[in-house]
């Protein structure tokens, strides 16, 4: 039972991490919580769904298409809703409010155009179960977990090793200085949103396969937001660790305390971190993030 709980917790946490990365990326550069991220994840899931059902593509192509689709949606979202605020140096609170508006707008767009019904992805993995020391784990969960870790690691390398990555890190530490040194800020921020959107695409597809696709599926991202805060908003290793910790803690609370108490615990954890350690586990205020 203990091991099964741990495995289930890690597999839930893997998805939280994937979603938390999107929050952290945007927060690290623009210093605001992009609450439209959940809606982008939802749209990513719909893109993946269309590719999987209309064009009967395999999982690899569905993921690629969804990454591209959600990435572009995130960039457009930034251009339309945030860039003018950003240029006018509006306080980050305004950006956050604009993000909330976008989230409601996008959800209702889907209601109005696609409708409120639920959809399911085709069964890519069948119902294959992997047995680990007497505990069961579906092949889907295992693949989703490994893929999430791999994607986050790839992002870590990208930011650490490439020229664009260095520019992003420069932007994180000082935006004004960065632009004075000749970095095209608009382009840089677009790249950040493209990356965050790409992760939203991956998260959307896995969420859609694991659960269902429907307009308000993005609400689950409030958990990812807690994960990002626990790990330290703006920190990639933090997003990963925060997601896994939250997934495991939640599952243990559900199993050993009460399933109804689960969210009481999650949100208490959020408050506790905000009060006692607002920078999270890995956040270093004012210093280098990402």
């Amino acid at each position, binding site marked *: *039972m203990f091991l*099964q*709980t741990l495995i*289930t*917790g890690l597999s*839930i946490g893997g998805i939280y991490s994937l979603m938390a990365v999107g929050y952290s990326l945007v927060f690290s550069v623009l210093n605001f919580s992009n609450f439209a991220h959940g809606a982008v994840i939802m749209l990513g899931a719909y893109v993946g769904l269309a590719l999987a059902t209309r064009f009967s593509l395999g999982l690899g192509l569905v993921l690629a298409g969804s990454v591209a689709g959600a990435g572009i949606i995130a960039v457009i979202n930034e251009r339309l809703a945030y860039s003018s605020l950003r240029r006018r140096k509006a306080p980050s609170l305004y950006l956050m409010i604009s993000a909330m508006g976008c989230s409601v707008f996008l959800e209702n767009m889907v*209601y109005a155009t696609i*409708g*409120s*019904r*639920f*959809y*399911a992805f085709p*069964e890519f993995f*069948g*119902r294959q*179960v992997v*047995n680990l020391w007497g505990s*069961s*784990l*579906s092949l*889907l*969960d295992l693949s989703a977990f490994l893929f999430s870790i791999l994607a986050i690691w790839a992002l870590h390398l990208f930011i650490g090793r490439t020229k664009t990555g260095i520019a992003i890190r420069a932007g994180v530490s000082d935006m004004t200085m960065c632009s004075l040194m000749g970095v095209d800020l608009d382009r840089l921020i677009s790249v950040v949103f493209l990356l965050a959107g790409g992760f939203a695409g991956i998260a959307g597809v896995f*969420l859609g396969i*694991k*659960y*269902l696709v*429907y307009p*308000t*599926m993005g*609400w*689950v991202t409030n958990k990812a937001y807690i994960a990002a805060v626990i790990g330290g908003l703006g920190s990639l290793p933090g997003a990963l660790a925060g997601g896994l910790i939250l997934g495991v803690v*939640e*599952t243990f609370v*559900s*199993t050993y305390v009460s*399933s*109804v108490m*689960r*969210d009481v615990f999650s949100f208490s954890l959020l408050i506790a971190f905000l009060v006692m350690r607002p920078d999270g586990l890995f956040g270093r205020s004012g210093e280098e993030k990402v």
Partner: protein
Amino acid sequence: MRKIFASLCVMTLLAFAGSASGEGIIRIGHTVSLTGGASMWGQSEARALDMLVKKINDAGGVLGRQIEFVRYDNRNDGVESVNVARRLVTDGVVAVIGPAQSGNAIASAPVFERAQIPMVVTTATNPYVTIDQRTDAVRPFAFRPCFIDPFQGTVAARFAITDLEARKGAVLYDVGSDYGQWLARYFEEAFVAKGGEIVAREAFRTEELDYRAQLGKIKELAPDVIFIPTSQKEAAMAAKQARDLGIEAVLLGTDNWGSPDLIELGGSAIDGGYFVNLTDLADPDIQEFVEEYKAAFGEEPVLPNPVMAQDALLMIVDALTRAGSEDGEALAEALANISDLKVTSGVLTVDPADHNPLDKPAVIQQVDVPNATFKFVKKYVSVED
């Protein structure tokens, strides 16, 4: 004080508005989920009602007058349902069809009761739709054509014990839903009374997606059957996650499973599951309706709501005819005394003591994913048979 006075004024106004109506037209309210999670049934329900009302109007209407629907979307939401109820009261409808869900119906009932407008719900199966939970007295203006949850829960338990030969049962339900909470209780009581044992009772919150923690606990206790009184969305996710954890127990559900998209959403995981339903497409009594619906809309009705909504309309029409007026109290009196009325689902008699239909049958269906259909398994006319 001023606030209380103001709300009293509003209430009085609403009460008076209830008795006003248009010339030559009888307006019947319809509160239905045209959007939101229950929209599939809601849309189908609205179509079936429009189909039937056209027939009634073409045949001369009721009391020599035409029937017209005043229809609002309650989005399957409690607060919105109350708003819709208030709007229908101000619109001066003579009677109301809906809401379809127990929680929404229980929330709307007091509004219609104050305005003295009879409400005939379609598929709200909770006992407290027609009985006031605080006073245990029957609600004078609430009626329904469908069976109630104690019956449904008992039928499910009986089927589990006798046909599935289950001895150990588990329950997974939504704590945020009146429907699920009560059904879980009725099932447990009946299951234990018939000699079974409930080994696990796990709950989740509305809108939650992951039940693996709860299911992991259930798995340890190895039940023969898991009772899941939820709608098709939660049932599909629970089934997938249960099978992923290697749980082999039979899955057993309730009438809210009965949506065609259960098969698409649940896939192979839900195959072989059983559930209780109000009607079955194969039921000989409703064949005429099914054919007519298919001819008109080119697809099968999303049961059971369209059938139950037609029953509700036929109840109101019968009551209007017998009462000879559209006065709320006279209508309620007539509704309470419906007997042997021919309705779409069969023949209906209302029990004046609790406003529930007498001897409403329940069917057990089995999910057949390869053939994308629900197989008719068995019909219960009462729990004793």
